[in-house]
């Protein structure tokens, strides 16, 4: 199966290290080639801000400062937003223009056939076999997502997985941010 032109996947990754928060959005075509890559400079709240915002600080920075800014900045709109932090799903469902999903690797044996989906005990979670020679992926959709919408998401993933490694862009984002920090990538 060769991928359809014009379709894209969006990847969102947030990195929190100590007092530093950073985020990036990478939109790729179904071959994994970058179409749009935006990142925030690291944000470091002051001690006063930590006291004033309390427990809400992390959520505020992650969602309203970083994610919202990235969603607005990205110019190429993807078919799906893929994140590797399930805490972001609720916010993305409310603010993103396309469906958000959480995707994670597993160590299970491959399921019998491509397209097979096995519901998991966790609400909105499935094991999905997206290609014939890999472990099934763990897919989580926002709670309340209809069956048809889940099938639509799975079909997009299957189509993309024929020509790219679905989780690979997360590692590329991390390498890119490291390169930015080291001064290897500049604006």
């Amino acid at each position, binding site marked *: 199966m060769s991928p359809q032109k014009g379709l894209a996947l969006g990847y969102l990754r947030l990195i929190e290290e100590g007092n530093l928060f950073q985020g990036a959005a990478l939109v790729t075509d179904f071959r994994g080639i*970058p179409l749009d890559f935006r990142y925030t400079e690291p944000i470091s709240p002051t001690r006063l801000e930590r006291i004033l915002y309390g427990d809400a600080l992390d959520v505020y920075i992650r969602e309203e400062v970083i994610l919202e800014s990235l969603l607005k900045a990205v110019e190429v709109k993807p078919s799906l937003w893929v994140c590797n932090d399930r805490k972001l799903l609720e916010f993305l469902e409310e603010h993103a223009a396309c469906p958000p999903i959480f995707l994670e690797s597993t160590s299970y044996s491959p399921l019998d056939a491509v397209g097979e989906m096995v519901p998991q005990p966790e609400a909105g979670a499935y094991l999905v076999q997206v*290609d014939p020679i890999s472990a099934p992926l763990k897919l989580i959709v926002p709670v309340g997502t209809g069956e048809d919408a889940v099938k639509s998401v799975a079909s997009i993933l299957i189509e993309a997985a024929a020509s790219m490694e679905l989780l690979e862009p997360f590692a590329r984002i991390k390498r890119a941010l490291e390169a930015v920090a080291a001064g290897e990538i500049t604006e």
Partner: protein
Amino acid sequence: MKRGFIGRLEEIGESLSRLFAGRVRVRSLPPRRARVAFLPPVRRGPINIEHLDSRQNTPVMGSLASEWRCVRPHRMNLALAGSVKICSAPLEVRPPLTKGGLSFGISPTIKDATERIRFLPQVRGNRVRYLKEKPFVEGSGLIALFSPIIKDALLREVLERERGVLLIWYDVSSDAMLPYMLALFRRLDASQGDIFSWRWLPGA
């Protein structure tokens, strides 16, 4: 005139001190310090104050800090000095994102590095363990399978032996879309010379 005003303020302070029976000390802040506290506007309805029986043990139901997270308004009771309960209307605080009120030392500057990230290779892991039927080449054993790869868009590939992964760079201007698998074989009978060979296989 000025002294009269300050005198009046002192009287108010003393009255408040008496009201709280020494539990609270009222002090005025110099104007310079008062300007430091620059909080976002807090929207709240009117506050009703009612007296409680002092024997009643009213728990403090919440704190302002916990209200920062509150998206859905809810009722909050605060007990002050064990005798007065303030029933507040729903308190909603949403810190402003860009201007006014609190703003972080480093504002969220967004950078575009699309052109730059295209120089980074994609990584393909070895999928040989997931193969149900391994391709057979006489005299050779399959040791690695990297997939999917758009063969006709490939500019360069590098095998990173330590991690056993293949790094690939695509020509971003290519329109090629057809995926392939790249298989690495090891010749079983080779005592010297080139013992590895690569073969392209149709996509899975």
